């Protein structure tokens, strides 16, 4: 009941949207009715534009995010265990943290061109930061007594790292990845919007510039839905992975 109720605001918003557009309260080219947006969506699916561009975006997003999780997770864990690495890398992380990563869009294009490479690099760089910080904080918080217990039961240092430090870091690491997941969508669409010949962002920009606003809205809503669904699925995954907590 409560779960159903939580979707009520969305339904109301949709109804309001349709009504405002139908009653011409707002210029219908700025806000086409939701039903027309829905029809445009079906056309985009049939024509293949949405699927093709979507596949390109999802490929870039998932590869960039995966690299960020592996690189950032590894870096954060190692920083927490080796003081020298911490001393060297921490200032870089702090310096890079407040930088709006979208400022790097032209830089990555300059390095890797207009294709997949520049988007993947951008997402990798941007998403690595929250993952690194999550892994670092999580691993730093790992309990001495657990580390010692594992060592006294015959685990060598590497084994202990995998068996104790990684699972101890997991709750914070997973939160960092959640932030990275949202950030990946932002960076993906904004970089495609600016410099790309493919992808969700490109499609939004193209449809907008050619005046097909119904189609433009359809793609925007698709991206919004995918972002929402990815976050929900990820949260279920976390719940399952951390089922040992209270």
């Amino acid at each position, binding site marked *: 009941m409560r779960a159903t109720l939580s979707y009520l605001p969305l339904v109301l918003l949709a109804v309001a949207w349709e009504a405002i557009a139908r009653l011409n309260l707002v210029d219908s080219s700025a806000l086409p009715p939701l039903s027309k947006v829905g029809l445009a969506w079906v056309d985009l699916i049939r024509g293949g534009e949405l699927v093709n561009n979507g596949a390109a975006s999802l490929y870039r997003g998932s590869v960039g995010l995966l690299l960020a999780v592996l690189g950032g997770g590894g870096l954060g864990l190692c920083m927490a265990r080796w003081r020298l690495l911490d001393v060297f890398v921490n200032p870089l992380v702090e310096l890079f943290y407040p930088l709006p990563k979208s400022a790097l869009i032209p830089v990555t294009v300059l390095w890797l061109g207009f294709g997949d490479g520049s988007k993947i690099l951008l997402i990798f760089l941007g998403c690595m930061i929250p993952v690194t910080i999550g892994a670092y904080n999580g691993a730093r918080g790992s*309990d001495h*007594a*657990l580390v*010692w*217990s*594992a*060592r*006294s*039961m*015959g*685990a060598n240092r590497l*084994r202990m790292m995998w*068996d*104790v430090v990684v*699972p101890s870091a*997991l709750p914070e690491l997973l939160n960092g990845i959640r932030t990275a997941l949202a950030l990946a969508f932002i960076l993906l669409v904004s970089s495609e919007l600016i410099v790309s010949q493919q992808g969700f962002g490109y499609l939004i920009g193209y449809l907008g510039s050619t005046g097909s606003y119904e189609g433009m809205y359809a793609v925007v809503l698709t991206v919004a839905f995918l972002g929402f669904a990815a976050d929900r699925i990820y949260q279920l995954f976390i719940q399952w992975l951390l*089922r*040992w*907590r*209270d």
Partner: protein
Amino acid sequence: MDGQSQIIIERVNHTYRPPRGRPVLALSDVSLDVRPREFLALLGPSGCGKSTLLYLVGGFLPTETGRIVVKGKPVTAPGPDRGIVFQHFALFPWKSVRANILYGLERQRMPRAERERRAQAFIDLVGLSGFEDSYPSQLSGGMKQRTAIARTLAFDPDILLMDEPFGALDAQTRALMQTELLNIWKRTPKTVIFVTHDVQEAVYLAERVAVMSARPGRIKAIIETKFDDRDPGLTRSKEFVEKVDELWNLVREEAIKAQSIKAQENQEKKPSS
């Protein structure tokens, strides 16, 4: 081997160096021998370095001066010949009771069938049958400590290091666990070093009690506390009460000193903060 010492602690000093602030001498010139299959209690006020001494024997902290020899070999690192039980259990929260107990056996590369059998035997020994698949967060304090003890006993260390293992339990659970520990120890005799600040607990459990001074920790006295029979009624006997008195007199002075050290430290901290 009998008659010989299993653990030799010789002229050990230890300085604790906090990341900020002055170094603190935690242990000063500590020497102590522990015999095979002896139950020895380390008794002292909080902050006297008794846990530090235990961690040194465990190999968790490096021995800086002096030496610690276990079964003829100097201690350099932790090893499965010395099992440890901590006050706050130190169970792997992401592993079930069974998986926690299996962990040490897996690290010892015991064949699967054998380790499953052995884990179950120790689950039964500590009375946790039916809770094999529970996670630590679902257990009471007493059950957590039972799991931790089973985990350590399962990989069969010669030496059991216990760091105030019952300190986080309520009084009733604590009394039950003490009796249980004695029963287990009678069945599988191991060398035990048991750290505590509870005089009664030390006298009830141990055969010898090493009393430590307030910081820097020194061995102030070693008192024999052997009784013919350790049933729970022992605690009301005249000889037991006298032993507790004797030890309490030794500890009280140190406990008072420890309090004034602590008060002084808090004073020093205030102006700087």
